[in-house]
C-alpha cells in the first residue's frame, strides 16, 4: 500500500500535478492567523513542495503563478524550503525577529536563489506599506528559474511580535503575473491578523 501511495504521489509530481482545493471568493483564514478576502476563485495546494510556515495558492497552476502566505515565520526559521535536491543539503538562511525590512528583502532574495537554484533572483523597490491594519512593507521580485521562465513578483508583509506575516505573489512575467496583480493588491488590502497573531 505504501508503495502504491508513493507511486501515485510520484506520478502526480512527474505530471506536474499537485492536489488542489478550491478556494471560494469569500473571506478565508490562512494558517489560522491571516484573514483575507479573495475577489476570485483560487486553488490551495495541499502538496505544494514548499515547507515551512507557509500556505500556497495558485490561479493557473504553480508553474505559472503562486501566492505564498507566510503565516508567522518565527525567529531562526527559513522563510520556506523546497525539496529541490543538492542545494538543500546546506543550511538555509533564516529569519531573525530583529530583522528590518531591508534584511527581509535580502533574505527573500537568498531564499529564492537557493530554492529555485538560480543566480537571477532579485528584490527591489522596497517601500513602507500598510499591512493588516498596521505598519508593513512591500517590495518587488524578479526570478528566473532553471526553466528559464522570467517571473515577476511582489511581497507585502509585516513583523509582529517577532514573527513575519505576509504574502508573496509571483508569476510568469508574460501575462500570469500582471493580470492578477490587482487581485493580490485587493487581498493585501483586506488582510487582517487573527487568532494568536492578533494578540
Amino acid at each position, binding site marked *: 500500500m505504501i508503495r502504491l501511495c508513493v507511486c501515485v504521489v510520484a506520478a502526480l*509530481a*512527474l505530471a506536474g500535478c499537485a492536489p488542489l482545493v478550491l478556494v471560494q471568493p469569500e473571506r478565508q483564514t490562512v494558517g489560522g492567523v491571516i484573514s483575507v478576502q479573495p475577489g476570485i476563485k483560487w486553488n490551495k495546494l495541499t502538496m505544494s513542495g514548499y515547507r515551512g510556515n507557509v500556505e500556497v495558492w495558485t490561479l493557473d497552476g504553480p508553474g505559472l503563478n503562486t501566492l505564498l502566505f507566510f503565516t508567522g515565520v518565527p525567529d531562526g526559521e527559513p522563510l520556506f524550503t523546497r*525539496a*529541490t*535536491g*543538492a*542545494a*538543500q*543539503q*546546506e*543550511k*538555509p*538562511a533564516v529569519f*531573525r525577529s*530583529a530583522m*528590518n*525590512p*531591508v*534584511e527581509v*528583502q*535580502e533574505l527573500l*532574495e*537568498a531564499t529564492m*536563489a*537557493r530554492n529555485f537554484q*538560480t*543566480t*537571477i*533572483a532579485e528584490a*527591489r*523597490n*522596497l*517601500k*513602507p506599506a500598510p499591512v493588516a491594519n498596521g505598519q508593513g*512593507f512591500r*517590495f518587488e521580485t524578479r526570478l*528566473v*528559474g*532553471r*526553466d*528559464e521562465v*522570467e517571473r515577476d513578483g511582489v511581497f507585502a508583509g509585516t513583523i509582529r511580535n517577532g514573527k513575519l506575516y505576509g504574502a508573496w505573489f509571483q508569476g510568469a512575467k508574460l501575462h500570469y503575473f500582471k493580470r492578477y496583480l490587482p487581485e493580490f493588491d485587493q487581498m493585501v488590502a483586506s488582510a487582517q491578523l487573527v487568532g494568536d497573531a492578533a494578540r
Partner: protein
Amino acid sequence: MSLTRRQFGRQFGCAFCGLAAALLAGSLAAQAPASGRTFLVPGYRPAPASDEKGLWSLMDRVEQELKLSRFVVRDPTLNAYVRDIMCRLAKDHCPDVRTYIVRTAQFNASMAPNGMMEVWTGLLLRCGDEAQLAAILGHEMGHYLRSHTVERWRDARNKSDFGTFLGLGLAVAGLGAFGSLAQLALVASSYGFSRDQEREADEIGLELMSKAGYPPVAAAEVWEQLIDEYKAGTAERARQLLFATHPEPEERMGALREAAAKAGGDAGERGHERYLEKLAGVRAQLVGDELALRQYGRSELVFERLLVRWPDDGQLWFAKGEVYRLRGEDGDAARALASYARALETKNAPPETLRGTMLIELKSGARDRAQAAFEAYLKAKPDAADADALRMLLSQ
C-alpha cells in the same frame, strides 16, 4: 577529514569530474603525444551512422539551448579571454571547442564530446590567477581529447539501460525533473568519470599547461582550495556510499602535486593581474551570487583566500564585510565594520560598502553614524535604487 570524490561533485559541481565520454579506439584517427596516448585528431567528427553521432546530436541541441540561456554571461572581454586561454591550451583543437560562461555560483566546468565547454562563474570567482583557470580548462580538455564522455556513456549503457543511467544521474544531481536539455547535460556531467579517467585527465591537463607556459602546480592549488572550502562548510552531508570507491580528494591532491612538480612545478606564467583585469566587468555580480548562497563559512574562506592574492582589493573587503553582516552572529557587527573600513581605504570599494556600514550602525543604535554613512552612500551612488528603502529605515 577525508572526502569522497562524489561528495566533492555535489558540493562544487563537477569540475575535475566533468561530463562522460570515450570513443571506440578504432574510430579515432590517432595523434600520439609524448605520453603515448591516443588523442582525438583536430577537426574530428563521428561517423554519421554511429551511436556517438547520436550523442553528439543531443549535445548539439543542448548547445543550441545554452546559446539562448539567460544564464550565459555575455561580457565580450571575459568571453574572449577564456576562449584565448582555452586556445592556448588546445592549440590545433581550438577551432573544435566553444566556451560558454554560465552564471552559476558553484565551482564547475564541463566539456561535452561535441566540443561544448561550460565554465561556471563560481569557478571564475575562486581562481586566484589565470594559471589556476588554465588548470581546470586543461583538465577538461584532457577528458575531451581522450573522449571520456563517450566512453563513460557507452559503459553505462552497456551495464544497465539508459533510463537507469539517467535516473542515477538525476539522483546524484538532485534534480526533480528535466526542465530543459541543458539540465540533461548537467545530469550527464554528474555521472562521474572513473578513477582512471580522472587521473588521465589530470595528467593531460598538466601536460597541456606546461606546453602552454603555465605553472602546473596551479592544478594542485585549485584542488587544495576546494578541499579547504569543503571543510569550511558547516552543514551535514550524506556520504555517497554508491561512489565510495572513487579516489579521496586528499589523495588526488597529493598525486597532482607530485605530478605537477615533475611537469614543471611553478615555472610558467601566472597571469595574476591580467586575470583580475579581465574579470572586472562581472566580478561584482560574481561576489553577489556567492553571497546569495549564504554559506558563510565557505564564503569567508573564499574571500580571505582571494585577499591574500589581492590584499588591497576593496571589492573583496566589502564582500567579507557582507558575509559578517548577513551572518549576524556575536561579534559579526564589529567584524563587518572593520572589513568595510578596510575596503574604504582602497581605491575600488563599491558604494555598497557605505550601505553596509549604514545598516550595521543603524542596528547598533548609532543613528548619527548611520545617517552619515547613508549620505556618503548617496553621494557615491546618486541613483541608488534602494535609497527610499534606506531612508525608510532611518526614519523609523
